[in-house]
């Protein structure tokens, strides 16, 4: 249709009318504005993409306050923002290294740990880091009585005899305290700045401390990064700390995004919108292996996947019979289970993960022997052994889908004449049942709270997991003896003797305990190939200080 002028005349093509002029001007302005906006966005992206790292982890943050945090992502952020006395080198969990503490000395029969601090460390605020801050930070963790308080359960006192010396007096010898101190939750907080925000480290800290809200969106540490912003359930932004004592990190900003769907993470990583993704899932990780711009890794996690049976026959029925427990061990198809666990997962002979000193050699692990399993069922005298197994039907850990693993265990046991009725429950319900000691049988992964094999003594009678399976140390003389060996292993200062004790404990545990070790899992994760220095460990994930872009 041809537009006419108000008097009805049709202008010749190319004639400049008032309407054409306005339209042309508007179009030009819109085009210029559009181009400017486009260029602006592109330039913004280009300027920030080189020194910004975008990560999509498995996103659960309960707190970013070192006095309260425990979940892996909270630990990772605390590790970036707060320096701890000791640290770990990437994925090597066995050799804690000096960090804020330049050195340490153990005396008093393994009960006195004296740390000499570095003198060149300042918090991001500019305040110097001294022994008073270490003492205050540890006392706050103890007195807040929150999630990480158990790390320092064995600490009787923290003293600061001079500005650069800290002494931990333990109730009992505990060589694992050095590994424990690498934890992000035990990062050193700027006590002066924190007190100004309502933090308290005194005996009544649980009721008097009001700093968690502040520390959820600000950091008060000396780490290589500063918590720039935290939008709950959406993202965390870390900014480079220019004052960091090891020098400013190569990466200027770290953006940690909540991307719950594994496939969305995979697409973002493939397209380069994400730099690191740790919630990919097994299938996506395998697909990404074909993408040259992405590096896919399967990192062994300090966790043990174990099937367990409640020792109370009223709950677990015939499954609690010792012969039936042995039959389960021989009846499972471990090769098939490892396929479900995914690449990188390793068969586990005991309950200590294969990447920690004290683990049994995987070659010691029970081999599938269905005839022997059937014979053990016959020896039990139970005609048709049967029991119920709880599992979290909505849970996926390290890419392992719990419903699939549950069905595999059920099918394997059915093949040797043991009937397992599966009871899929929402995660919180399954966890609640287990913690209340109400689960008849179950399986799950216990992830290390700290990188030391003694954390896995929780499986012993009378300890954390043992109690939940109604297996007290008083259950039998053998259980009592096993518990005693566990105490010895925990206090043994000599590394070799300690490993030997831990292995003895596990072998005995498999003879008399309700556990069927399955595997040490591996996390499938990936990062862009132009990044260097990217590692993942199960204590505090990725250390952003070492990450750089080529």
């Amino acid at each position, binding site marked *: 249709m041809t537009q006419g002028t108000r008097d009805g005349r049709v202008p010749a093509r190319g004639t400049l009318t008032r309407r054409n002029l306005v339209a042309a001007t508007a179009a030009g302005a819109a085009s210029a*504005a559009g181009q*400017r*906006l*486009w260029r*602006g*966005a592109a330039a*913004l*992206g280009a300027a*920030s*993409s080189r020194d*910004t790292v*975008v990560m999509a982890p498995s996103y659960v943050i*309960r*707190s970013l306050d070192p006095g309260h945090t*425990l*979940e892996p992502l909270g630990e990772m952020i605390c590790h970036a923002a707060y320096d701890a006395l000791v640290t770990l080198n990437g994925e090597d969990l066995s050799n804690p290294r000096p960090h804020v503490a330049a050195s340490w000395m153990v005396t008093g029969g393994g009960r006195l740990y004296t740390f000499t601090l570095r003198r060149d460390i300042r918090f991001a605020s500019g305040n110097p880091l001294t022994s008073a801050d270490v003492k205050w930070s540890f006392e706050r963790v103890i007195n807040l*009585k*929150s*999630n990480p*308080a*158990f790390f320092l359960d064995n600490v009787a006192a923290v003293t600061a005899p001079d500005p650069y010396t800290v002494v931990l007096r333990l109730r009992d010898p505990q060589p694992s305290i050095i590994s424990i101190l690498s934890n992000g939750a035990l990062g050193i907080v700027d006590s002066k700045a924190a007190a100004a925000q309502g933090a308290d480290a005194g005996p009544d800290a*649980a009721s008097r401390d009001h700093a*968690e*809200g502040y520390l*959820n969106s600000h950091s008060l540490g000396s780490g290589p990064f500063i918590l720039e912003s935290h*939008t*709950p*359930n*959406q993202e965390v*932004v870390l900014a480079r700390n220019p004052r960091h004592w090891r020098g400013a990190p190569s990466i200027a900003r770290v*953006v940690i*995004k*909540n*991307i*719950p*769907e594994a*496939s*969305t993470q995979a*697409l*973002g990583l*493939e*397209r380069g*919108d*994400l730099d690191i993704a740790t919630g990919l899932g097994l299938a996506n990780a395998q697909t990404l292996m074909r993408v040259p711009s992405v590096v896919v890794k399967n990192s062994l996690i300090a966790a043990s996947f174990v099937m367990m049976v409640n020792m109370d026959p009223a709950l677990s029925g015939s499954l609690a019979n010792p012969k039936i427990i042995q039959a389960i061990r021989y009846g499972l198809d471990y090769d098939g289970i490892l396929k479900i666990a995914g690449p990188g997962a390793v068969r586990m002979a005991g309950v200590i993960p294969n990447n920690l000193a004290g683990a049994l050699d995987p070659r010691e692990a029970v081999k599938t022997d269905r005839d022997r399993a059937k014979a053990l069922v016959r020896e039990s005298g139970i005609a048709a052994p049967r029991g119920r197994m709880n599992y979290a039907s*909505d849970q996926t850990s390290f890419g392992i889908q719990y419903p699939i693993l549950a069905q595999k265990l059920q099918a394997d046991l059915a093949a040797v004449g043991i009937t397992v009725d599966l009871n899929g429950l*929402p*995660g*919180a*319900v399954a*966890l*609640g049942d287990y*913690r209340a000691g109400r689960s008849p049988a179950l399986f799950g992964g*216990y992830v290390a*709270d700290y990188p030391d094999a003694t954390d896995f003594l*929780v499986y012993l009678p009378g300890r*954390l997991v043992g*109690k939940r399976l109604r297996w007290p140390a008083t259950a039998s003389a053998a259980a009592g003896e096993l518990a005693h060996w566990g105490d010895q292993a925990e206090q043994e200062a000599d590394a070799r003797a300690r490993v030997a004790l831990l292995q003895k404990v596990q072998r005995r545990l498999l003879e008399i305990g309700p556990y069927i070790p399955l595997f040490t899992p591996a996390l499938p994760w990936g990062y862009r190939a132009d990044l260097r220095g990217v590692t993942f460990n199960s204590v505090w994930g990725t250390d952003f200080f070492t990450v750089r872009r080529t």
Partner: protein
Amino acid sequence: MNLAVYIGRRVLFLPAMLVGITLLTFVLSHAVPADPVAANLGEQAAANPEVVAAFRHQWGLDRPLPQQYLIYIWRLVHGDMGTSISTHQAVTTDLGQDLPATVELAFAAMLISLAVGIPLGILAGVRRDTVVDQISRGGSLIGVSMPVFWLGLVALVVFYAWLGWAPSAGQLSPRLSRPPAVTNFVVIDALLAGEGDIARDALSHLVLPALVLSAYSIGVITRMMRGSMLDVLGEDYVRTARAKGLSGLRVTLRHAARNALLPVITIVGLSFGGLLSGAVITETVFAWPGLGSYAFRSATSLDFPAIMGVGIVVASVYVFANLLVDVAYAVADPRIRMG
């Protein structure tokens, strides 16, 4: 009846309905056989009675349930929805942060649904049993039957990963910073901050999830509009209009479509409520930080104050959507309010 009186009566009914909703949500969320301690404390902490007692005391879980409910209602009356166990923020702050993202998404999806569904329905009704009608019916059937989760992932793979037409998941490109929060509507906040590039980026991120979310309501609106058009086109007044010599387009738009819209208004109102409360899957696939994601996380971590807050907001949205539908009906058809 006067329109204002009609609306006033409906609004007065609202508080009683909200109290009923809080009671129902409270009872249902506490009937779940799970403990917030299990969902929020670590293994070791949950085994320490002192830590567990401190946790229960901090969140008021050590009080009898009726007392917990009455305290909640008392605070609610004073505008306090409590503090979220998961985020440690006031639930009102959380909702103020997450609800706008969902409203933005639902509003965009509704606009698309109306812009596509109504013309398509009209066209299908007018061209009954033609190829256009068959395509429209087939398309709407696909729209209502396709799982949103699958559709979302396919849309991401095709338009983001393969063709590169759509941006990444999320409200903004990952490397961009959010504008300072004023309204928590990212596009508006970006414009208020004079950040045109961020507003443009936010708008471009809105398109794909809104299209995916609108698929179902496009299908419903198209089918409803087509059916309604078929009814209306057979009416005497349409025949009269044609007999008067009015053009086909004028008869269709002025006489038929206008009257055929009435039943569609109901569907639009309910669909908008559904879009707001049911966007959880779309939000998960597109990493959209909205109310649906907040509701899911609150439920899995047994965050009772947050669950209550979401329940109240979703119920209120439905109530208000219904109210708006009724009012729109009353405006469009005066016989309703007179009755």
